[in-house]
């Protein structure tokens, strides 16, 4: 293999996709920065505080988890726990089967994607339909999201129009407004016919047991207005200590992710619907999922669990902008995914060990992160782990010869003298894969070795 997997994926990306990913991530990033710095006197302090709050919550999960469980129960929700993705899928199935339910609408749940819930439920005769416009298109195309906040950033309107035509949602029409209206019409009847609404959570307050959900489209609202059973599938890292911390986090989330003061809809759910309210779930289930998160908590990369999935690090990342999301081969792409995805692989870490290496460590992701995650540091720790676990690293040139030269002055001098020869060697023909890969896109400049030594000598005199 000449390249790492992420490079191979990125190399096959069509130029128009690369350009559109680049353009839209750049625009969102610039708007975000302007908003934060125009509106707050000390936006960096906000990010630090938010990071400290979430770090505190993570390092005290042993007390917060039982606390939030008790609160949720007091609010009238039933609480379940799932160590693995399969266990969570099984639990969802049990809840549905106990009610003879066959139709589910989903909203705001990357976790269900992570554990491949829809695929699990299908053979049991259960339809689990995505309702976010982008996620819905992903689902009908049997595709994967390529951005945390903008799942179909890699698709253009023509592809979407073709999918809609194929699915019987109307004759070919690639006007974005028409596409949206058709989805609106189709999906509202799906909500109304569904038995169960499944959501994730952006935050859960340990103080009140309040579940917070944010969407721009209103799909989570519809799930919770039209169905009678609500299942919230939540990773254990979503807990925040108090309600007042939500104010700070919500202010950061909308601005960081989509450059909005607040996301359009922020829902605070405090149990099943109230008795006087005609619409909404009479029954609420919360499933807390581990699926590798406690391993991350035990690792030296636990800071990544602070992530509030805003997508800002993707938008600013020069590697993401070039490679796009699918190159990361995970539900979580970009810088956050480069840390989280290998960690969540458990024993199969090696399969994604290339991701932490696909970074120039420029630090932009750390600078924008609303919870101040030191992503470059975490990437280095993971590179180190790959080294310790002897994970092979295709495309990385052997450094042995360099180490020898750099530590032996005589060898160094000899190399400088011989270097001139390089001007006459056709580098492309040297049968070292790493070198060939490198020179495929680049040419060596003319040899200038030894200039510095010459200059030093003259200076002394």
């Amino acid at each position, binding site marked *: 293999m000449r390249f790492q997997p992420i490079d191979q994926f990125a190399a096959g990306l069509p130029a128009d996709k690369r350009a559109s990913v680049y353009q*839209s991530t750049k*625009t969102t990033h610039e708007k975000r920065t302007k908003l934060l710095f125009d*509106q707050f006197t*000390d936006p960096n302090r*906000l990010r630090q*505080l938010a990071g400290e*709050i979430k770090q*505190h919550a993570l*390092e005290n999960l*042993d007390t917060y*988890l039982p606390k939030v469980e008790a609160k949720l129960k007091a609010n009238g929700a039933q609480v*379940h*726990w799932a160590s693995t993705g399969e*266990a969570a899928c099984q639990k969802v199935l049990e809840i549905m089967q106990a009610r003879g339910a066959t139709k589910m609408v989903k909203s705001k749940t990357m976790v269900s994607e992570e554990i491949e819930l829809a695929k699990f439920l299908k053979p049991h005769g259960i339809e689990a339909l995505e309702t976010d*416009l*982008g996620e819905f*298109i992903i689902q009908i195309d049997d595709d994967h999201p390529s951005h945390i906040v903008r799942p*179909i950033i890699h698709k253009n309107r023509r592809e979407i129009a073709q999918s809609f035509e194929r699915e019987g949602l109307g004759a070919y029409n690639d006007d*974005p*407004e028409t596409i*949206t*209206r058709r*989805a*609106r019409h189709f999906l*509202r009847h799906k909500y109304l016919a569904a038995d169960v609404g499944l959501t994730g959570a952006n935050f859960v307050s340990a103080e009140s047991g309040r579940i917070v959900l944010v969407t*721009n*489209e*209103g*799909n989570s609202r*519809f799930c*919770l*207005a*039209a169905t009678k059973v609500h299942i919230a599938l939540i990773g*254990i890292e979503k807990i925040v200590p108090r*309600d*007042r911390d939500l*104010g*700070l986090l919500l202010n950061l989330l909308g601005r960081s992710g*989509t450059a*909005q003061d*607040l996301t*359009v*809809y*922020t*829902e*605070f759910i*405090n149990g*099943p*619907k*109230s008795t*006087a*309210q*005609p*619409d*909404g779930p009479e029954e609420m289930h919360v499933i807390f999922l*581990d699926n590798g998160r*406690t*391993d991350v*908590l*035990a690792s030296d990369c636990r800071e990544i669990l602070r992530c509030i999935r805003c997508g800002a690090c993707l938008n600013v990342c020069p590697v993401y902008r070039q490679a796009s999301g699918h190159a990361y081969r995970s539900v979580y792409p970009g810088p956050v995914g480069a840390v989280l995805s290998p960690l969540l692989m458990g024993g199969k870490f090696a399969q994604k060990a290339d991701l932490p290496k696909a970074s120039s460590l420029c630090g932009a992701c750390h600078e924008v992160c609303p919870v101040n995650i030191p992503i470059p540091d975490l990437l280095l720790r993971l590179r180190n782990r790959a080294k310790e676990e002897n994970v092979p690293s295709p495309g990385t040139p052997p450094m042995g010869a360099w180490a020898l030269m750099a530590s032996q002055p005589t060898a160094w001098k000899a190399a400088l003298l011989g270097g001139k020869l390089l001007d006459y060697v056709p580098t492309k023909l040297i049968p070292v894969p790493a070198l060939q890969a490198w020179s495929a896109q680049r040419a060596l400049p003319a040899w200038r070795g030894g200039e510095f030594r010459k200059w030093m000598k003259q200076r002394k005199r």
Partner: protein
Amino acid sequence: MSDDREAILSRVRGALAPLHERAPLPVYDSEIAVMRSLIAGRDLAELFAERLKRVGGLTFTSPAELVAHLQAGQWRHGYCDPVLWPVLAPHFGPDFTVELTFDETRVDDYAFGITRAAAAIAESGTIILDDASTSRRLAALAPWVHVAVLARGTIFSDVTQAVAALGADRNVVWCTGPSKTADVEGILIEGVHGPGAQIALLV
């Protein structure tokens, strides 16, 4: 799955055991996340209207204005919270059909839904709905136009204040403008699943 509960909690305890000290909960003043320069000295109703406009919503200060707007948009069939209707009815002409019950089997019949707002946030132009004040969750959500009737005295200045006042209601929804998406090629389209037009009627 109570065994999963024990398993998860014991893994959490195991993961945290080696930490010599745990990160403390930072002490901070919520004021840090308030856009004070925006709010200071402003009439909250005015600021709210301005901020709602910025996110694509509209504010009216009289039922007559609202009715004229609905008329102009040709939204003539809708739902109204029965509690509000006695006050609003005199403003609606005979060419309107307003139902006081919401029949979800005819969800597409309703062009507008009028319900009460529980409160609002000036800083962000947010309308706050909750179970106690919303006659039907669906009626505030499914029609193309949602009109929230908002009492002037219930406007909070900022997000922080509104969080502090969340209370015990089972379902509090902050609506900051109409439903939106930019999923297709980053182009902003309003009215995906929720209202394509968000209106506040100040009373």
